[in-house]
């Protein structure tokens, strides 16, 4: 029998966004509602496609201290599915483990199954009286789940498509926390037909058959990081008996994060750079369809624009100019940050040959960058003034060392200040 289901994960309802600078109230409101709006889109998708069931593979909420509003909206969405006769299968992940946090939901709708954390739980899905699928799932008991939960999925198989629902880190992805670590082989050996995974925010199909192993990514991006930017959504899986016919990614995000890189090499002035950025953003906004867009821009390269951007407040003013120029976009296009990675038109090799103060400074910087130990000890010295404990308590990322990139920037900055022509021309 043919049927279809939706596989989503990492809703992170009421999710905090990362790397978002100060925004105006309208943007703030849209950001606040974005994860919930994406979830609403997910429910709409399930209803439109008339799926048999919906799988949510962990991290429904962003934290144990989940918001009331998010829980109420989540419940309302599940009720809509229930009203339509669509079953829901849910596991908890590291962000919303079973034993942490609280629930404002006192009673789940009838067709909702929340898998427990003690053992892999098995639920059979029947359509018109015939069992078409068996869904296996287990939740995280607590955040730092170190057990390879995939191994628990071994056992007898019932009739229909065998689906495993798990929040885990396959292959120890270093960009994500190593919770419920497992290997691809562990999953393959479990003898299931489809692994509905969660945890990794960048969507990926780890295996496209025997079994299918899929991370759908999160439903709403949270920053301009590569894993968080671009289209976000869920997979609609078409099945026929125990065979997967097709998987289709459907974007569900309410706000899309994008990043543009523009090189100022060959651009003579700031207006030229602004034009370039705006063209790129307009293109992305067009591609995003009816979604709002939050754009981070990296400005790289070397040219006269570097000097303009290096003036006090120039970067902020440029950012504001971009925001002003994008005020008419509907839905909005918000320029989040400009990362000035431009470099002055300094020929470092020539400076090295000059045999003067500048060359000595460059030589010193080269020495520091070459010796990691030196850089670490210097970092300790330079960063000793930081109110580290206070900043960390407030959730601010405090660097342990001054990064190589920052040392390079510091070197260029020092040279710029030294070599900058002063307004002095008395003979």
């Amino acid at each position, binding site marked *: 029998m043919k049927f279809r289901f939706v596989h989503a994960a990492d809703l992170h309802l009421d999710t905090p966004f990362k790397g978002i600078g100060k925004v105006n109230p309208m943007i703030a409101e849209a950001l606040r509602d974005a994860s919930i709006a994406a979830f609403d889109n997910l429910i709409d998708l399930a209803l439109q496609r008339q799926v048999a069931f919906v799988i949510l593979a962990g991290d429904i909420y962003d934290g144990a201290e989940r918001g*009331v509003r998010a829980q109420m909206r989540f419940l309302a969405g599940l009720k809509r599915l229930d009203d339509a006769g669509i079953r829901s299968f849910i596991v908890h992940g590291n962000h919303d483990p079973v034993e942490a946090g*609280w629930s404002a939901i006192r009673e789940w709708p009838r067709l909702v199954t929340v898998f427990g954390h003690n053992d892999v739980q098995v639920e059979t899905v029947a359509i018109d009286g015939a069992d078409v699928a068996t869904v296996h799932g287990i939740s995280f008991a607590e955040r730092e789940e170190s057990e390879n939960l995939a191994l628990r999925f071994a056992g007898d198989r019932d009739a229909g498509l065998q689906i495993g629902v798990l929040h885990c880190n396959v292959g120890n992805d270093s960009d994500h926390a190593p919770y419920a670590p497992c290997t691809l082989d562990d999953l393959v050996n479990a003898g299931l037909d489809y692994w509905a995974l969660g945890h990794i925010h960048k969507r990926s199909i780890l295996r496209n058959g025997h079994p299918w192993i899929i991370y759908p990514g999160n439903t709403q991006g949270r920053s301009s990081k590569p894993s968080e930017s671009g289209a976000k959504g869920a997979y609609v899986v078409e099945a026929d008996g125990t065979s997967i016919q097709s998987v289709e990614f459907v974007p569900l995000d309410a706000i899309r994060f994008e990043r543009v890189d523009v090189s100022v090499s060959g651009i003579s002035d700031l207006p030229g750079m602004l034009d370039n950025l705006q063209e790129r953003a307009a293109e992305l906004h067009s591609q995003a369809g009816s979604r709002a867009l939050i754009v981070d821009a990296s400005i790289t390269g070397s040219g006269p624009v570097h000097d303009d951007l290096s003036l006090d407040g120039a970067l902020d003013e440029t950012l504001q100019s971009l925001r002003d120029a994008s005020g008419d976009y509907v839905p909005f296009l918000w320029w989040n*940050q400009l990362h000035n990675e431009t470099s002055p038109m300094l020929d470092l090799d020539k400076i090295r040959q000059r045999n003067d*103060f500048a060359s000595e400074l460059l030589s010193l910087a080269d020495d520091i960058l070459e010796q990691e130990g030196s850089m670490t000890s210097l970092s300790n010295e*330079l960063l000793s003034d930081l109110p580290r404990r206070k900043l960390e308590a407030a959730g601010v990322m405090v660097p342990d060392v001054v990064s190589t990139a920052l040392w390079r920037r510091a070197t260029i900055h020092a040279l710029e200040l*030294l070599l900058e022509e002063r307004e*002095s021309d*008395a003979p």
Partner: protein
Amino acid sequence: MRITGWHIDGFGIFSGYNVDNLPPGLTVIHGPNEAGKSTTMAFVRGVLFGFPSVRSNSNRYPPLNGGRHGGRLFIDAVAPGDGASDSEQWVVERTTGLVPGTSRSSATGSLSVTLPGGSPGTPEDLDQLLGHVGSELFRNIFAFSLSELDSFRTLEDDAVRERIFSSSTVGAARSPSDVIGILDRRIAALLRKRADAAEANRAMAELDAVLDKMHDARRAAEDYPRIVQKREMLEQDIVRIEDSLQLAGRNLSMYQKLIDLWSDWLERANALEELERIEIPEELPDGMEERLQDLRNALHDARARRDERLKDLERDQRRLERITTDDSLVAIANDVKSLYRDMSAYEGYIEQLGELEAKKDRRQRMLDDQLSILGPGWNRMRLESLDVSIPAADEVTEWNNRLEQVRNQRNDSDRSLKEQEDRIDTVRNDLDKIRAEFNNYKSTPELDTLENDERLIRQLQSLLDDRVVAQGKLEDAEHTVEDRQAQLAAMPGSSTTDMIPFWAIYAIILFMGVGVAVMIVFRQWLAAALLLVAALSVLVMSRRLPSTSVPEEAREVAGELLDKAKALREQRVEEVDALNARIAQYTTHFNLPPSPSRSDVAERATFLSRQRDARMRGDDLARQIEELELSLQGLESKLQELKDERSSRQAKLAETTRDWESWRQGHGVPEPMSPEAVTDLFTSIKRAREVLSALDDDTRHAMSVRQKIQQFDERAHDVLRKAGLDTGVGGTITTSYEYHYDSNSLGKLDAAAGGPTLTTRIHNLYEKILEDEEARRNREGLETATEYARKEWEDAEDKLQEVKHNLDNLLRSAGAGNEEELEDFIKRTARRHELESKVNAASTRIDTRLGLGEAAENMRSELATGDRTSWESQKDIIAQQIDLLNAEKQEAIEQKTRAADEEKRVAELSDLASLEIEAEGLRQQIAGALERWQVAKAAKYLIEQTLDRYEREHQPKVVARASKLFAGIAGGRYRQLMTRDGKIQVLDSHSQIVDVEQLSTGTAQQLYLCIRFGLAEEFAERGTLLPFIMDEVLVNFDPDRAQAVAETIARVSTARQVLMFTCHPETVGMITQACLQIDVPPPRIIDLNET
């Protein structure tokens, strides 16, 4: 590198100035103040590093003498002693585009670098040639003036250190300490302990506040389930109370129904009881009561109508009896009405007659006046007999005009005649006067003769003048002869001449010509004046030069000159004689002495002039006489014409007068009279006849009016008599005409007579007739109305009887003996009907409230018990229960509302997402600030470390070199330089440490000069060999030290090029001497005066 020369296009005073072949060693550029030393130094620095910008306050040395602002430096890149060739020469050219003669810059200028071999170079190539030494560094170390050398002295220690060891050696545009300052400020602005204004601190404070809010939100969220549970319990309580309330409500409703229905139940029972008691004989037909009442009403209405009609009849009869009429008036009614109609015309006639009589009186008086104007003998009859027509009057006017015209013409002729006679008299008088004057000039000669004599006398005067000149020349010639004779006698000997030599004349002409040309062409007045003065000088000089003396030939020459003088004297004598002969001819003609004096001749000339004037006056008078005589003839001829014309006009006047007299007599005007008088007479007669005619018209009109009045009076008296009324005053008939004519006022006489006037009586009689006619018409109307009223009354009586009959029939039909009995029957029947309705209504109401079924039957049974007190007591108890339950419910609702509000509030409060977004924004801001803070800190570290290393490595070498040089210059007074904590100190011969501030100005300058030499060596070691350019650096030094410094400079020049600028010749000598002293090639001396 060394500078081999330069070409200045235009810079300060220099224009097109070249210097070349500068040696690799020492060059001294010498010149007085303002010769261009500082300019040259500024030029060299400017070409290498750029000229001051327009915005700077520095002297830009605009090209005062033309040329493009800027120029070229020729540079040899090879170190001294390496033997440069032309092919290795660099050319560095820089121009500013400054417009000559102004301080305006047309462009920022441009740099052009030409590499050895002629290929173009770049600014970077120049930078490399200069060893990346910047403008400031070059000025500090290599190219400095006395003031700049001394400027170190005024700096603080750190600044000196900066200038000498840091800035001066970094090859940077900005000093490291400046950069460190910038970075320190940047670091402090980003993150700093206890600095609220720092960006990260500020954001951190905001983040703390947001985190506090988030903490509150989380705590509130934790309480959420308890709040939800409480709200749900309260909702259940409300449901339970509402159930109790529902039950109590039903009981209450039951007892309330019993109470409510009790009155109906009771009413129904009473009605049934009464019904049983009421008896009636038999059922009355329907509508009996209404019919009885209708007949009663009809009977009442019929009676009232009958009585009303009877009253109308009696009233009409009484009114008929009151009307009376007079039959005698009927016969005269028409006459009286006719009189009454004519009465207003009659009164108009009376009034008109009075006005006519008055008018007649006025006309009679006017006629009398006209007759008196015409004079005695004029009466009505004569007036009527004379009819003067209007054409006759017009003819008289025409006569009058004609006579006036003829008379005026005659008078005009009289006036013209008189004026003409006056003119003739005037001309005659003038003629007499001119003739008398003319007689005085008759004997004067003719004008031609006189003019000829005047010409001759002028010639004579001219000859006399010529003779005086000729005599003068003769005297000169005689003097010349005497002089030549004397010169000849005085020879041999020397002589001078006043003649101006030819060369001087040529020079004067040349100078003056050029002067004038300069003045005209170039407007250079001063130059022209100078040339003219030069010309004068030449003149004076030439006059003062001694002439050449030639004694031998002079005598011959003097002899020749004497002969020539004598010949000339003879010629002069002949000329005088010839003049005398001609003069004699003139004196004969004028009868003057043979040799007349100039006054004689002048006197004769005056006389001739007067005679000529007299002759001309006489001729003029003769012409006037001629003209006047001609004029007189014309005037007299005209006078005769005027006299003839006057006679003719006088005759015309006499004839016209005669014609008029003939016409007057023909028209009956008896006495002689002018046409104006005849016109007046005719006008008066015409006016008198018009008055007489009007008077006759008025008299006829009055007669006619009086007849109409009399006719009316007679008709009136006739009618009055017929009516048997009084006809007038005192019982007699008096015509109203007389009566009114005499009295001229009707009312007054009526009042005086004590009775009504004729018109009043007619008026009264007329009123009486109208009243009588009205009474007759009223009586006829009343008679008709009375008859109608009688008929109405009879009809009403018939109707009354009919109604009575109907009533009797009704009573009989009901079996009642009378009306009262029938009424009782009706009343009892109605009561029964009422009670039956009540029973039915109460039953319906009870059935409606109770409905059907067992409960309804139970309620009916309960109603049948009639225990209302018990019901009310139960109802009160239940009502109290309901109140209690309602209060409890309200309390529960309020609690639930509060719980729901709290739930909502907590839900909103726990809007962690918004707070997270805000917090993340702030974290991002802090992270950004931290990143920039790290960059600034690291940059500062790099600069500090580099500076430290730089000073550590280079400073001791520089000081050691400088120390050696300084000790040599100080001649044992100071032994060594040293640095402590970056500060320079000096060790003296007694091993005492001396601070730079304690040194004299000169010594400190020597110290700083030595440090510069040390630094330059340090640079040379690092591959940068630049020339020294010094301006007047030795002037503050004592002779010994100056000599020592000069030798040091000479030594330095063996390793690098040195350009020294000075205005002191002794410095030039000192440097040259120093070179000889230490066996160094002598300097090249460039004297700026030679430019």
